[in-house]
């Protein structure tokens, strides 16, 4: 893998942070990925199922080219990548410097468990006396103070929750490897000064902090006494009361800070003076504690503060760019009014808790049983908009994700119930079902067909049924019928909130927050902040689902990469060794077996000589050696010396935690010039811990594992990993804002780009769009982008040109273009980005065409701009949403129409407040912050009337001279017909893509059923085609607004850059091949290959496999009738031999 000098810091190890880190790493930069919690994966480590597949699939984010640089197992379990340094339990401590040269320091929380020694046996958990709520199961179950943060992590090291640990030492005694070092010497000498005028407060704090916290505590009863104390004795932390007679806390704080500017001070305050405490933080207080104190909350907090203060800050790192990917947090329904009984009714759960109930690793092992009494669940109600679209909970925004996850949860629950043969009623109570993504509406329809009930109405509270058996919900249907429904489980679809710690992080980085508390980004960009080189990824800038977070993460990687490249970061690493391994292809296998005795812990009672003898019965095994500790530097050096001495061509290491060795093996390979694919680590440690079943199970188990490893290694292919050449140039089809952005993004990295546009000018839809809803002008964006494209030395713009033919595969494509004069020429490029755009859909609905007063939203935009419409001359305007949309055959939401309607309604109302505007809608898709404008439109007096598919409004053109338009419809809230005489009827017809089928086919990719680009996977590879090397962005990908289109363009560019970054890209070591002598050219394998990696050689005589595109899935080997197709590393002889060894 090529490595460059550029470095990036990614803050946050959730899905967004992982995507950004992988993108930057695959481009060749060194990435430091820090995560505050002890595990990566963020919220997704808790979520097992994602729509539309209702499965996971996160592993699809792993690299597809240069696969061996990364781990290739379940991404929810863990991640390794050569270029990514993952640091868990780590936070940013400081940042200085300029874009391209930030100097950062990190603070890593100490963990009393040594990860190198912990073998995950769990003996510590058995003895731990502390029970506390398990955050992984959203508090639905309990765990011990020593615990696994995520039960399925690899590597999985136990951690101690120092906040609740009593330091009793039981785990330390129980640990068989001595991995736990509990005693924290620091606390005994850590002096805390408690300043309070009340004796009882001082005394109880002293008692708690000394006895339970293990700290040293001094006391002072007044400000002057406290100041005197710190002058004479000093202290490491001051707990300071605000309200004291004489000198108050704030004054003491000021004086103390004058004496000792670095003294950490925590204010103590009654609830009434919280504001003063917040003010005190502005003049240097670290935090505040609210009285009355709860020792269970206070002590962990003081311990936390102590740890932050006592944890040394790591060495300074220099990074070119910082990617903030802090994610979001979720609304806690127990806050605020809580009319849903959350926290008091055990069968009222949040959506995250329900995900845990569904999970096999959850509190009920995935069984659908009620938390209160364990009875099977039969009726579930989802309540939408909990903490969203609710100004009373400070949320004048739509959280965007909840509608879809509620549908998904209902579907998965139904599948689960069907599997168990149980009856399950599922109802979703909603106001607007915001199915705004391109496949969402069909997903909703599918769920409805499968029996999920959609009930339009907001449930205001949940009360227990008088019988005490289940829960009661009272709500009103659209027609006014008031109903009382029953459910035995209520799921609150909680909305998103700015991430915990977002404020501190953005303050440290000097980044503004928007009015909703999320990161403020630049106009038209979802990732760039006012500070160049500091970008927002994932949902950190607000209200994104997985798919959009992943797009945003790649876009953020691109923005970061531009800064790093600009500072010279793309230069190849000087001391990066060009590895040349010894050619061992023509040698017989010579295996060296090294067995780690783990200080005799593993090999206790093992007859070493006998084992050596048996292993050496195999002629391939040349040497067997026992080492004490391969995990230590010393042990590793011994191993290296052994290899250098004996020069084996295969190495088998029997040790523990094989995944820990990935990086070490690569280094060893370089040092001893042996391809690391010919070295393997097998886990003999687990076998030694198995309960004893027969005479000497350990010996048998270890021997079996070793012989299996020997069998695998004997057959390991000694041939070097194939690489394919890359033509380091990109082609972008379409010169709209997405195409231009993609071209610029790649060209800014120094690669040449051909930009193909069929019309005679660049700009696409930006030519007729004038303003965003927030008033931002669009014209400057167009002018600036077009000028940059036209003057960019690396971009070749081809106007009035189209693609007539193309073929090729990742790394090398050949595209034939034809210009306006019919001149054809061929372009070669390593990756292709399709950005062919789309347009407003044509319609004949609602009498469009019968009157020039029935217009579309696009026409209204033009008429408002050129003055053809005078809002002051209008009395009534009717707008109709979802024209021909969200119903077959165009059964998708175009996403931009509702915001456009709001924009135009507000503009009209602004120009003429007396104008009556009536909007007919099905579900207003005012997602995210757009909800604020929905509120504004209502406040401005716009009337919104919902309609259903079987009750669409009707538009009639008056026969008389003035030809007024008459709109008739049903007003569902009043349950009666309405008749509106309108001056204009404006239709929102939505977006149709202009992605020609022959173009898509030429590049070997697919269209979806609505002729949009078919992405490989809507969540995990949202801008990639299934075929590597082809990407799409803008509205030929999916309907989206300008900012979102730009994000897809940047994401597509980043994905393309990974490929064209190097002259050659390597495949993975597990790839398919063809035994040509056995191949009958039936071509079944070509059909079976999901990655388009196989094709018939042009001369038609053999099947060839593109090694880079092949992902080693084995579909070809499975369909081949002649065993001609095979997968390297899984050939029949080898697999049989391994099975034999396992059964021996």
């Amino acid at each position: 893998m090529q490595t460059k000098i550029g470095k990036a810091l990614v803050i946050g190890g959730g899905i967004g942070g992982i995507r950004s880190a992988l993108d930057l790493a695959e481009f060749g930069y060194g990435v430091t990925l820090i995560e505050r919690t002890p595990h990566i994966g963020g919220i997704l480590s808790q979520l097992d199922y994602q729509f539309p597949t209702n499965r996971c699939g996160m592993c699809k984010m792993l690299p597809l080219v240069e696969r061996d640089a990364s781990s290739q197992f379940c991404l929810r379990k863990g991640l390794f990548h050569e270029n990514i340094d993952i640091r868990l339990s780590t936070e940013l401590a400081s940042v200085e410097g300029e874009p391209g040269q930030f100097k950062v320091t990190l603070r890593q929380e100490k963990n009393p468990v040594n990860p190198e020694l912990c073998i995950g046996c769990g003996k510590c958990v058995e003895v731990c006396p502390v029970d506390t709520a398990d955050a992984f199961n959203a508090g639905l179950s309990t765990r011990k103070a020593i615990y696994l943060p995520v039960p399925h992590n690899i590597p999985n090291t136990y951690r101690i929750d120092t906040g609740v640990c009593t330091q009793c030492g039981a785990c330390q005694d129980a640990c068989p490897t001595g991995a736990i070092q509990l005693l924290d010497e620091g606390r005994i000498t850590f002096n805390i000064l408690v300043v309070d005028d009340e004796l009882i407060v001082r005394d109880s704090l002293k008692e708690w902090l000394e006895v339970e916290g293990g700290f040293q505590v001094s006391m002072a009863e007044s400000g002057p006494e406290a100041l005197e104390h710190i002058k004479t004795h000093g202290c490491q932390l001051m707990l300071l009361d605000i309200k004291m007679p004489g000198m108050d806390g704030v004054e003491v704080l000021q004086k103390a800070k004058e004496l000792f500017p670095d003294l950490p001070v925590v204010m103590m305050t009654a609830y009434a003076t919280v504001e003063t405490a917040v003010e005190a933080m502005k003049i240097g207080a670290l935090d505040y504690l609210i009285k009355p104190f709860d020792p269970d909350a206070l002590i962990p907090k003081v311990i936390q503060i102590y740890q932050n203060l006592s944890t040394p800050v790591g060495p300074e790192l220099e990074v070119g760019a910082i990617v903030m990917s802090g994610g979001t947090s979720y609304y806690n329904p127990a806050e605020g009014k809580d009319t849903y009984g959350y926290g008091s009714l055990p069968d009222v759960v949040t959506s995250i808790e329900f995900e845990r109930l569904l999970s096999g690793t959850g509190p009920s092992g995935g069984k659908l049983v009620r938390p209160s009494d364990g009875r099977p669940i039969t009726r579930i109600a989802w309540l939408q908009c909990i903490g969203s679209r609710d100004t009373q909970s400070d949320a004048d925004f739509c959280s965007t994700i909840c509608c879809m996850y509620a549908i998904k949860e209902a579907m998965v629950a139904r599948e689960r119930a069907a599997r168990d043969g149980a009856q399950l009623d599922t109802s979703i109570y909603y106001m607007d079902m915001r199915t705004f993504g391109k496949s969402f509406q069909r997903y909703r329809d599918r769920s409805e067909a499968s029996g999920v009930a959609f009930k339009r109405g907001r449930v205001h509270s949940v009360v227990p049924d008088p019988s005490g058996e289940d829960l009661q919900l009272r709500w009103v249907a659209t027609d006014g019928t008031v109903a009382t429904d029953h459910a035995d489980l209520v799921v609150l679809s909680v909305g998103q909130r700015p991430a915990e710690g977002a404020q501190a992080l953005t303050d440290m980085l000097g980044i503004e927050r928007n009015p909703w508390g999320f990161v403020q980004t630049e106009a038209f960009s979802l990732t760039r902040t006012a500070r160049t080189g500091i970008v927002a990824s994932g949902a950190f800038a607000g209200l994104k689902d997985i798919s959009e977070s992943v797009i945003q993460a790649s876009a953020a990687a691109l923005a970061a990469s531009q800064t790093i490249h600009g500072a010279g970061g793309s230069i190849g690493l000087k001391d990066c060794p060009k590895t040349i391994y010894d050619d061992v292809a023509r040698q017989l296998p010579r295996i060296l077996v090294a067995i780690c005795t783990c200080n005799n812990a593993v090999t206790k009672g093992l007859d070493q000589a006998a084992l050596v003898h048996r292993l050496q019965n195999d002629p391939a095994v040349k040497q067997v050696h026992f080492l004490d500790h391969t995990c230590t530097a010393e042990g590793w050096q011994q191993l290296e010396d052994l290899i250098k001495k004996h020069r084996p061509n295969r190495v088998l290491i029997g040790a523990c935690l094989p995944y820990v060795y990935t990086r070490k093996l690569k280094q060893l390979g370089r040092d001893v010039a042996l391809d690391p694919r010919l070295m393997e680590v097998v886990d003999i440690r687990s076998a030694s811990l198995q309960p004893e079943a027969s005479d000497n199970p350990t010996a048998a188990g270890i021997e079996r594992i070793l012989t299996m490893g020997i069998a695998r290694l004997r057959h390991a292919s000694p041939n070097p990993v194939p690489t394919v050449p890359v033509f380091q140039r990109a082609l972008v089809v379409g010169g709209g804002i997405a195409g231009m952005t993609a071209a610029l993004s790649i060209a800014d990295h120094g690669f040449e780009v051909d930009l193909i546009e069929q019309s005679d000018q660049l700009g696409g839809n930006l030519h007729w769009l004038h303003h965003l809803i927030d008033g931002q002008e669009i014209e400057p964006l167009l002018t600036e982008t077009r000028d940059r494209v036209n003057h960019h030395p690396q971009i070749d713009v081809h106007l009035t040109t189209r693609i007539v033919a193309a073929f090729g595969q990742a790394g090398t494509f050949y595209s034939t273009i034809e210009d306006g004069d019919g001149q054809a020429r061929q372009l070669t490029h390593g990756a292709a980005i399709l950005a062919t755009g789309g347009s407003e859909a044509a319609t004949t609905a609602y009498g469009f065409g019968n009157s020039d007063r029935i217009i579309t939203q696009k026409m209204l935009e033009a008429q408002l701009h050129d003055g053809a419409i005078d809002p002051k001359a209008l009395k009534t305007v009717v707008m109709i949403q979802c024209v021909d949309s969200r119903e077959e055959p165009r059964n998708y939401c175009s996403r931009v129409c509702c915001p456009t309607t709001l924009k135009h309604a507000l503009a009209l109302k602004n120009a003429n407040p007396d104008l009556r505007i009536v909007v007919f809608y099905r579900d207003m898709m005012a997602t995210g912050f757009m909800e604020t404008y929905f509120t504004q439109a209502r406040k401005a007096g716009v009337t919104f009337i919902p309609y259903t598919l079987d009750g669409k409004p009707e538009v009639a053109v008056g026969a008389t001279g003035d030809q007024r338009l008459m709109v008739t419809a049903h007003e569902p809230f009043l349950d009666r017909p309405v008749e509106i005489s309108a001056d204009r009827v404006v239709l929102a017809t939505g977006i149709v893509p202009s992605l020609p089928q022959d173009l898509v086919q030429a590049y070997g990719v697919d269209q979806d059923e609505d002729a949009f680009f078919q992405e490989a996977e809507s969540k995990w590879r949202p801008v990639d085609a299934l075929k590597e090397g082809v990407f799409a962005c803008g509205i030929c990908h999916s309907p989206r607004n300008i900012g979102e289109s730009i994000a897809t363009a940047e994401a597509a560019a980043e994905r393309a850059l990974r490929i064209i970054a190097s002259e050659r890209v390597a495949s993975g070591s597990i790839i398919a091949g063809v035994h040509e002598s056995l191949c009958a050219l039936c071509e079944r394998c070509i059909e079976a290959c999901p990655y388009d990696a196989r094709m018939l050689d042009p001369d038609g005589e053999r099947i060839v496999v593109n090694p880079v595109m092949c992902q080693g899935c084995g579909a070809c080997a499975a369909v081949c009738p002649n065993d001609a197709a095979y997968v390297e590393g899984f050939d029949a002889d080898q697999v049989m031999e391994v099975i034999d060894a396992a059964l021996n």
Partner: protein
Amino acid sequence: MKTAAAPPTRQDGAVPDREALHAIQKKIQACIQCGTCTASCPNEFAMDLTPRRLWRMVLMGETDAIFTSQTFTLCSACYSCTLRCPRGLPLTEAMHDLKQMAFRGHMSRYKPSTAFYGHFMNTIRRHGRIRETEFISRYFLTMTPSKPMLPLSYTGLGFKLFRKGKMAIEYPFAAPGKRSLEKIFQKVESMEASA
């Protein structure tokens, strides 16, 4: 669905015009018709229009229909809707505004409510507290010319309340704190007059 009452009579009090609704419209304009108010309302069963419908009509300026309805007179100001409204709209206050408009307009349709609220407040004004027997007697006196049998229809309930000690035989002018609220009432009157 509830049946609407008979059309309003305009003889003794005009239905307020659409402009008059403007202030109330402003208060509730951000309404999203979610129905929380209706589902929260404990008196909704007795109302001819559900609260959500009433607000929809207010927003659409349908004064005739609004002032045909008894819905707002049935609001007992429990504030459940105001507490729960996701938009934070002052719905109880808006109900109160509608009552005010109806009572000030002296519409015969609202005579029972006007008389009820009027005597309630007057009793308080006189005694500084509510005196149930006096208050209900005065109410019956106002109502009997048009509905002579009205007091009889409450006989049963009256006896029940007496028996449980909820009502008592009171001497008309012997309450403590007499006239102590008068100043407040006068102040409010002068404020309202100048407003």
